[in-house]
């Protein structure tokens, strides 16, 4: 008797891409797990000594959990570690744009999440 194989269909959240004026593109996933939402809320509320640092860390957390690809000058970055490192090395203008993208994406896909 032939062995039965069960294949689970893997659901993949839709992705959204956002381009800046120079054609660089950030691609974000359309799902955020309950654990990530919890951690985000805790990070945003954390560090009473520095609201600014808490806010920036919350932005970084959202970036880490949502961004799946960053195409800069037609060269894609897809590895998680490199994406985060590139964000940390971003210029103030790039960081500002990435924050705007995260806000827009949250408003569209996760209206219950308080955008950074």
């Amino acid at each position, binding site marked *: 008797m032939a062995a039965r194989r069960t294949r689970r269909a893997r659901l993949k959240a839709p992705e959204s891409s956002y381009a800046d004026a120079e054609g660089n593109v950030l691609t974000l996933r359309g799902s955020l797990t309950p654990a990530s939402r919890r951690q985000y809320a805790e*990070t945003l509320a954390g560090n009473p000594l*520095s609201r*600014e*640092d808490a806010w*920036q*860390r919350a*932005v*970084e*957390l959202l970036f*880490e959990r949502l961004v799946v690809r960053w195409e*800069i*000058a037609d*060269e*894609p*970055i*897809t*590895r998680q*570690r*490199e994406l985060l*490192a*590139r964000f*940390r*090395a*971003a*210029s*103030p203008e790039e*960081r500002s744009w990435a924050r705007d993208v995260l806000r827009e994406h949250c408003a569209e896909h996760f209206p219950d999440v308080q955008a950074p």
Partner: protein
Amino acid sequence: MEGVDVVRAAFDAFQRGDEPAMFALVSEDVVVRQFPDQLDVRDYRGHAGLREMMATWIGTWDDWSIELLSAWDVAGVLASASQRGRGSGSGVPMRAEVTFVFEVHEGKIRRWRMFHTEREALDAVGADAQA
């Protein structure tokens, strides 16, 4: 040696690949902290901690290099530098400025902090002065 001279000498040693000379200018109990807004920010302690931090950051890039642009005394040594490299997986070029604040004691760096901009570094130094 003044604080600025210690910092410049440490950078010079790093640039010429003379790690022992660089570490000779760093206190054994140095405390290093990366950007305060990093999600995983923490203190790296001692020479081993500094080595770990450097290896983690530099290991993310190919052909990573850093150039000291300026350094001056302002309740510590504030130093601006330009770093560049290519993503180790993607090859995407990176060029970014970073500002360091060093505390130098008895000719050795004993505290080393990093900021995205000079403004953030100056704010931190100002906060230190008020504390």
